[in-house]
């Protein structure tokens, strides 16, 4: 049983961390964090309303997500393509540093008052959180062969829906069905971990404010250590 679950634990911890980050970002500045579609939508709305500063901000924030993905690709995927071992701990360590910085700098007022939207201050907050999410999502996607993602649930839910229907028409007790069933449990587990993280975030962020970003930082640190132990 544990043998089956062990390879999943660190990815689920990261999914819970993503839930925490999204809740924290939303409660801090009323914006979802790892939601590129949402930023594109907000950009369109700001453009239509003539809110040029907001439109520029919403257009740039997803670029940090992209930068995060590129950084991960550089230290994970690029190394794999060159025949080297991927450095999972480096991007995860970077996430820890980013989130600890957010927790400390937020506590000192760099991002404005927690819960109040301020374009200039919150742009930096969203940029840092998006950067962390981009790094994390690319690491998980690459490391799990696209079976799992981490920081958003749309793709996972799509895969789950497709996988559930596949299971329906596959012959009972066939290996393919067992494989698809395992994939589905993994996807459902990732969604549950994200929701659990988001729920915990809803309790801790209103009390701890920016300091609560230390929690997902801790989860990323534990994940980095677990992955390092598996690959050493």
């Amino acid at each position, binding site marked *: 049983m544990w043998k*089956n679950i062990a*390879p*999943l634990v660190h990815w689920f911890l990261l999914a819970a961390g993503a839930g925490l980050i999204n809740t924290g970002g939303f409660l801090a500045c009323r914006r979802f964090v790892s939601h590129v579609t949402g930023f594109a939508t907000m950009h369109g709305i700001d453009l239509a309303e003539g809110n040029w500063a907001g439109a520029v901000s919403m257009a740039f924030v997803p670029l940090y997500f992209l930068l995060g993905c590129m950084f991960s690709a550089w230290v994970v995927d690029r190394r*794999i*393509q060159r*025949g080297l*071992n*991927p450095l999972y701990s480096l991007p995860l360590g970077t996430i820890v540093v980013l989130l600890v910085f957010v927790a400390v700098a937020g506590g000192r007022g760099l991002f404005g008052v927690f819960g109040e939207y301020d374009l200039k201050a919150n742009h930096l907050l969203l940029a840092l959180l998006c950067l962390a999410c981009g790094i994390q999502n690319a690491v998980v996607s*690459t*490391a*799990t*062969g*696209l*079976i799992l993602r981490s920081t958003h649930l749309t793709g996972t839910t799509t895969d789950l829906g497709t996988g559930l229907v596949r299971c329906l028409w596959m012959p009972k007790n*066939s*290996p*393919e069905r*067992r*494989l698809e069933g*395992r*994939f589905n449990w*993994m996807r459902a587990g990732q969604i549950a971990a994200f929701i659990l993280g988001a729920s915990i975030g809803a309790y801790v962020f209103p009390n701890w404010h920016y300091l609560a970003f230390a929690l997902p930082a801790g989860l990323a640190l534990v994940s980095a250590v677990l992955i390092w132990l*598996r*690959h050493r």
Partner: protein
Amino acid sequence: MLVLTHTGCLVMIECISDSGPVVLSLKGRLDSTTSELLETQLRTLYAEGHRCFILACAELNYLNSAGLRVLMAVRKTLAQHTPSGGIHLAEARSHVRDVVQLSGLDGLFPLHASLAEARAAAGGTI
């Protein structure tokens, strides 16, 4: 020695031995774009009468769920006609091993540290 090579921009499949278990060397990425090449290769060898395969994965950089599905499909064909047939994975790098273990398929596709170990497990001669 039989040498068959499929060269695409993303994957190269080379059959390096057909005595005993057939050893296929995989290089590059095994994903939705390239897994069809492997399936075609394995099914061709199956049609020629081969029932046991070792995939040498030392230079396989990437494996995803599409690649695993192809392995499952071929293994199903093997299991239907020859219970002793199978697919073994040798020299897989840590991230490829991770994907196999993550999927819970290391029971169906045994992972071996070396080709010699895989050949011994597959019942072939070293």
